[in-house]
């Protein structure tokens, strides 16, 4: 049987179609063949679009594709286990411009949402029943897909007309926090329900990313270690208890221990936080390389591997025999970490071995080399150093001396 793409190519003059039209057409054909595997279809479309227009990133296509399916009324579109996390992840990472999510939430999400709705947090000084009822109703509407996050502000403005703009803004931040926490709790609950052992934390990396999110980005955490915090958040019966359970105390310093502190790990980690939880299978985790703090890293591609293996400033500047050993030594003992001065999506890592590693936003290693002028080169490459092992250990010693 010809693939959907072959049928599309034969039936339409695809070259004259806009990307939007092309995806519409593809989804229409897809709906007729809903039994097919979603991943295969999406991959097929990606490969085609790569040839069709090289300026379109796979992320853009994935996002448009997901949003179109999400807002579609086609009954043939399956509510698949693949599709829902995809839409979740895209909408959470891309922030308030995310598409409406009209797919049905699973039981795990509903429980988390219900628990969140049972108490309101950070809604200014007004904790009257009427305010809470209004907010609950708006939250419910967002979860049911009546509003996008963008439209949430407008809804809050209309429902709380008596408040000053500043107050509405505060409400929006509080509402956004609750919604994001609810969705992350939903993902974690689903992971627990499905017997997953690990989850991964994924931050949106750019110039606005905070230290805590950088320290948690791509960290693989055992589900069991988050269970205590999950229970504490879901069972909180007061605003104070909910605040304490949410634990925002690491937002400036970040978390620099191999195992996250007790009662910490579930995003959001601060107001306006865009970090999410991603489900992980044990098989995926087995294949991963993790740095000193349990964050995933991987060499970008074979060409990068060859570069580090053959060029004189990289592997040969060490006494090690393999690229893998150099990676392990550099990322296994991190002395400093900062934001790249020319590109805030990149992390610059200074290993205790005197090598500098640069990772892209997805944790892919773009280079590892030994700069001739050592730490001066590291400081010249970064515009903000957010982790310094020496400084942290000194502070810890001072605290100990002072008996704090």
């Amino acid at each position, binding site marked *: 049987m010809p693939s959907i793409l072959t049928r599309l190519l034969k039936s339409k003059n695809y070259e004259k179609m806009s990307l939007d039209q092309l995806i519409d057409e593809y989804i229409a054909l897809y709906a007729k063949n809903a039994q097919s595997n979603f991943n295969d279809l999406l991959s097929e479309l990606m490969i085609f679009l790569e040839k069709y227009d090289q300026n379109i990133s796979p992320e853009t296509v994935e996002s448009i594709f997901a949003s179109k399916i999400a807002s579609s009324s086609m009954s043939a579109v399956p509510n698949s286990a693949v599709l829902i996390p995809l839409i979740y992840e895209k909408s959470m990472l891309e922030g308030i411009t995310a598409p409406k999510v009209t797919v049905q939430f699973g039981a795990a999400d509903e429980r988390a949402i219900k628990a969140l709705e049972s108490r309101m947090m950070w809604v200014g000084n007004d904790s009257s029943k009427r305010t809470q009822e209004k907010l609950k109703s708006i939250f419910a509407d967002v979860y049911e897909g009546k509003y996008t996050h963008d439209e949430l502000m407008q809804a809050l403005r209309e429902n709380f007309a008596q408040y000053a703009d500043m107050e509405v803004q505060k409400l929006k931040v509080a509402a956004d926090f609750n919604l994001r926490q609810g969705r992350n709790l939903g993902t974690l609950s689903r992971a627990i329900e499905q017997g997953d052992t690990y989850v991964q934390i994924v931050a949106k990396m750019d110039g606005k990313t905070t230290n805590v999110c950088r320290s948690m980005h791509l960290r693989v955490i055992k589900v069991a270690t988050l269970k205590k915090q999950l229970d504490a958040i879901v069972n909180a019966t007061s605003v104070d208890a909910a605040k304490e359970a949410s634990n925002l105390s690491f937002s400036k310093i970040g978390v620099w221990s191999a195992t996250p502190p007790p009662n910490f790990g579930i995003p959001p980690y601060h107001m306006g936080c865009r970090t999410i939880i991603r489900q992980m299978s044990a098989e995926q985790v087995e294949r991963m390389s993790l740095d000193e703090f349990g964050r995933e890293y991987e060499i970008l591609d074979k060409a990068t591997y060859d*570069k580090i293996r053959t060029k004189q*400033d990289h592997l040969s500047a060490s006494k090690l025999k393999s690229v893998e050993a150099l990676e392990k030594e550099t990322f296994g003992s991190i002395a400093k970490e900062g934001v790249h001065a020319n590109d805030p999506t990149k992390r610059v890592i200074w290993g205790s071995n005197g090598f500098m590693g640069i990772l892209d936003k997805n944790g892919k290693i773009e280079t590892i080399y030994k700069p001739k002028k050592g730490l001066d080169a590291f400081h010249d*490459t970064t515009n903000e150093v957010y982790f310094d092992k020496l400084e942290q250990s000194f502070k810890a010693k001072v605290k100990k001396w002072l008996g704090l």
Partner: protein
Amino acid sequence: MARTLTIDIWGLDWYIESTTKGDDEAYEFPLIGNYSVVDGKITHLHDYMLSEKLLKRCVEFGGPFLEHCSFVYIPRNKDGELVQKDGKVIEGDFIDALVFIYKEFEKKAKNG
């Protein structure tokens, strides 16, 4: 006779290389990822990305950066293999070579 060196751009790392070995360790040089200088002549340069800040630093330093050389550039494809047929020679000083690398990165960024 002008020396011949090679320019290599691999991912976001770039290199200006020669076959001359050795290094005058004590030679004062501007802050750059890696470098070697022998008898006051640059024999090796390497860094990751090339910023305007670094370019200015080299221009201000002058000296060995002003030596006129031939720079042979052979681009690499996405798999890191050298594409001999697209090779070219840049005649000029080290600043010209750095500006060439800077522009190559600009082109790369534009083409994704």
